[in-house]
């Protein structure tokens, strides 16, 4: 039984360093998966492989909705179905907030201007920043910028949303507003893969938690079990370090 996102024997190395050592993962449609683990464990690399921002070994395979993620003509099409939110937002600083959200639908989906504009305003309202639509990203707080980034990704109506440590670059008082938007999103049936250090979010929102270390999946299961009763010593060590800091 294969999932909507299917990762098979995913390997990647930088020179002699193996960042990913054969990851197998099946994620079903609508599932919310949180990937946790120490820094350098390969969790960001894993999700960056899913839309092939990182290349990976030829004997590995990733499928999204049955389409193979590989270089070439089909790649842009797969990427259009996979939204991504980055740690450092990566908004386009020369475009207004609304134009940031409109750009990809206009160019990639050829959505007419008026329709794209209405959709952008709807999405900005949904993430709670409708009144900032005419500002530039530099005029917004980090939390607001990250919410724009989520709206921008959603504008392509992706089947899968990837979150790469979306709250790690935020001041603590802004983490909550971004997590709230993500929690709402999780309720709408979008498949979500979230790399995060927010254990509270993982335990409340995730259907499944994946613990990675040294380029391998060490343990996976429902958050209630992995986070409160981990079986593997490495998971236990990591969790006690995170929770007691």
């Amino acid at each position: 039984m294969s999932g909507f996102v299917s990762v098979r024997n995913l390997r990647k190395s930088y020179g002699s360093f193996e960042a990913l050592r054969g990851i197998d993962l099946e994620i079903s449609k609508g599932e919310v998966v949180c990937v946790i683990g120490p820094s350098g464990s390969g969790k960001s690399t894993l999700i960056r492989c899913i839309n092939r921002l990182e290349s990976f070994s030829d004997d590995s395979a990733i499928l999204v909705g049955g389409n193979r993620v590989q270089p070439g003509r089909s790649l842009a099409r797969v990427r259009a179905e996979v939204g991504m939110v980055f740690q450092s937002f990566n908004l386009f600083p020369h475009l207004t907030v609304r134009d940031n959200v409109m750009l990809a639908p206009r160019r990639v989906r050829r959505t007419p201007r008026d329709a794209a504009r209405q959709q952008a305003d709807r999405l900005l309202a949904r993430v709670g920043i409708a009144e900032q639509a005419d500002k530039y990203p530099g005029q917004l707080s980090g939390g607001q910028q990250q919410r724009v980034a989520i709206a921008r990704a959603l504008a392509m109506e992706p089947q899968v949303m990837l979150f790469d440590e979306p709250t790690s670059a935020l001041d603590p008082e802004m983490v909550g507003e971004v997590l709230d938007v993500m929690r709402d999103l999780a309720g709408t049936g979008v498949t979500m893969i979230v790399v995060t250090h927010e254990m509270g979010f993982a335990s409340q929102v995730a259907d499944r938690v994946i613990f990675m270390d040294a380029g391998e999946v060490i343990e996976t299961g429902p958050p209630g079990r992995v986070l409160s009763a981990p079986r593997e010593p490495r998971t236990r060590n990591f969790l006690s370090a995170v929770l007691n800091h």
Partner: protein
Amino acid sequence: MDIFDTFLNMGVIARTWPLLLEGLWVTIQLGAASIVAGLVLGLGLALLRLYAVPPLRLITRFYIDIFRSIPLLVLLIIVYYALPFVGLRLSPFASAMAALTLVSGAYTAEIFRAGIEAIPKGQFEASAALGLSYPQTMRDVILPQAVKIVIPPLTNNSINVVKDTALASVVAMPDLLKQATQAQALAANPTPLIGAAVLYLAFLWPLVAMVSRMERRFGAKGT
């Protein structure tokens, strides 16, 4: 004969002024044509230098290095006096424009490259993640940001191109300097040369001031 009669002779200036203005017009035409052609060439070279297949990238780098090393005057003389031996005979204007464009293109290529490389990697990644194609990424995301960075150095380069047009006088181009030296010979008085210097200054000084202002403004914004 005092210094005013020698260098600032109003009678001579009045007689040779139309000649100087004709020269200025040729200089402006040559400068503008070379700047525009150099920009197009430079952008193309920069994109090749950054994104072409490796052998093409190497050739582009080689071109850029060569044309940044060769003295413009030497190149100009080769184009005008040597190419006719292989059957390529260019007019003075075409020779001067070709030499200026070839060199300016090499410099602008490096300016564009630096501008594009100054754009954070995250901008390319965000564009790719949204499904934008490479040309769309360049047109809608990267170049609009890079332009802001490259405008001051590009204007500097344009000023240099206009100044270098004076070299075209050696291939019998009737540009500002050539007209001034001719007027000097005609009037047996160096005042037209001073007049030409004043015209160059009047034309280029505002551009220099504009670059400083832009550098201050963009610098203050931190872009």
